């Protein structure tokens, strides 16, 4: 199947999942994940109406950004969704619309420092480790409030939501408790911080469950571009 067909089917499934759970489909934003995806395929996806792409690696992002900025610049927004190291922050600022994966104070401080120099405000999501798996990134549940307060002290970083990566299951239904947990955290935090509204959760295997639980951004790669070797 072509990328165009894949995108149409994904959009229909997003629409259906939103309607079935009593949500306006416009509340759900599709982020096409382009880890290991060629420039040609990204260009094709733009032709099919995709306007936001998610990258996992700063170096890979840098290479693609340079090429695509010249050809499609204004049509495309980039999100950074991978593990972020302090020394890679400089490659992202001014180029990405949103960082989904903030989980370290040193990185937050680096973003703040560079953003101040640029005179910009950088929106971020805090990645939360909802499963407690040690090898996973993200802030542990019991440290979230403390971490959030420290990031809020940084004037050029703005937390606008939360992100999570649940454990992998063959049965998507089993991811539901993790997504529900993230939404409950968001609802609680939003009482004090009305701008903290985004929930980045759900990937190719389980985005419908995530939408039913309130996702406002789904990160989909495989269903659009096919499996990759990276």
């Amino acid at each position, binding site marked *: 199947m072509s990328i165009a067909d894949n995108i149409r089917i994904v959009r229909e499934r997003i629409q259906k999942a*939103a*309607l079935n759970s*009593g*949500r*306006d*489909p*416009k509340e759900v934003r599709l982020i096409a994940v382009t880890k290991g995806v060629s420039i040609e395929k990204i260009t094709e996806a733009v032709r099919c109406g995709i306007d936001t792409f998610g990258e996992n690696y700063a170096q890979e992002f840098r290479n693609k950004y340079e090429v695509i900025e010249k050809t499609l610049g204004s049509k495309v927004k980039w999100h950074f969704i991978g593990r972020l190291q302090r020394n890679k922050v400089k490659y992202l600022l001014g180029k990405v619309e949103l960082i989904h994966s903030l989980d370290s104070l040193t990185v937050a401080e680096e973003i703040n420092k560079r953003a101040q120099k640029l005179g910009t405000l950088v929106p971020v999501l805090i990645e939360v480790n909802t499963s407690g798996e040690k090898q996973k990134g993200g802030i542990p549940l019991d440290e979230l409030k403390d971490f959030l307060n420290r990031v809020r002290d940084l004037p050029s970083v703005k937390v606008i939501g939360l992100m999570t990566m649940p454990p992998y299951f063959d049965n998507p239904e089993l991811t539901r408790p993790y997504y529900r947990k993230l939404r409950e955290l968001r609802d609680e935090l939003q009482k004090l911080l009305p701008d903290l509204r985004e929930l980045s959760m759900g990937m190719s295997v389980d985005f419908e469950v995530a939408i039913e639980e309130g996702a406002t951004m789904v990160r989909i790669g495989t269903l659009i571009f096919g499996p990759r070797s990276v």
Partner: protein
Amino acid sequence: MDGIVLASSSPRRRELLEKLGIDFRVIPPQIDETPFPDESPYSYVLRISTEKALSVSRSLSGNWIVIGADTTVTVDDEILGKPEDKEEARVILNKLSGREHTVITAFCIVRSKAEILHKQIVESKVRIKRLEPWEIEGYIKTGEPMDKAGAYGIQGIGAFMIEEIHGSYTNIVGLPLSQLIDVLTKLGVLKLFSCQDEHC
């Protein structure tokens, strides 16, 4: 549970539920149905169906299951509600002529008082034939367009203009029965048929 309440003043919704032989009461809700500026059709029907169910549930004492529903017609993200006069009916019917539009119904199920159990939207596509000016005028004269979202009734004289539909028919009338019954059954509120063989 004391029973099911349909929070609706639409005779069409009442008739749909009656046909299934379900026991229920009807209480018309009193709410302001004006859309917010820039409100999307989906957000609008969700909000109105929820307000209908909540407002009726608050007026009840006892343990009731209240169903609120709202239907709208939309083309190009515009809400085409009930026309206020003949001129507006004419404008809406001209917009629908010769093309496909979407009918969306949201339903909200609330347990009294004010506990939301479920919300869902169902959409159907309807293709209307190209309407001649005299057909529009004649149809408006029947009076049928006036109290209906999108200025037509598929179950009435309006059937003359329906070329094709895709999706639930009862959803276009005003209540997506299959989806609604499914949810009521899952919630344990209703059992349309009881199972008496080994499949139970």
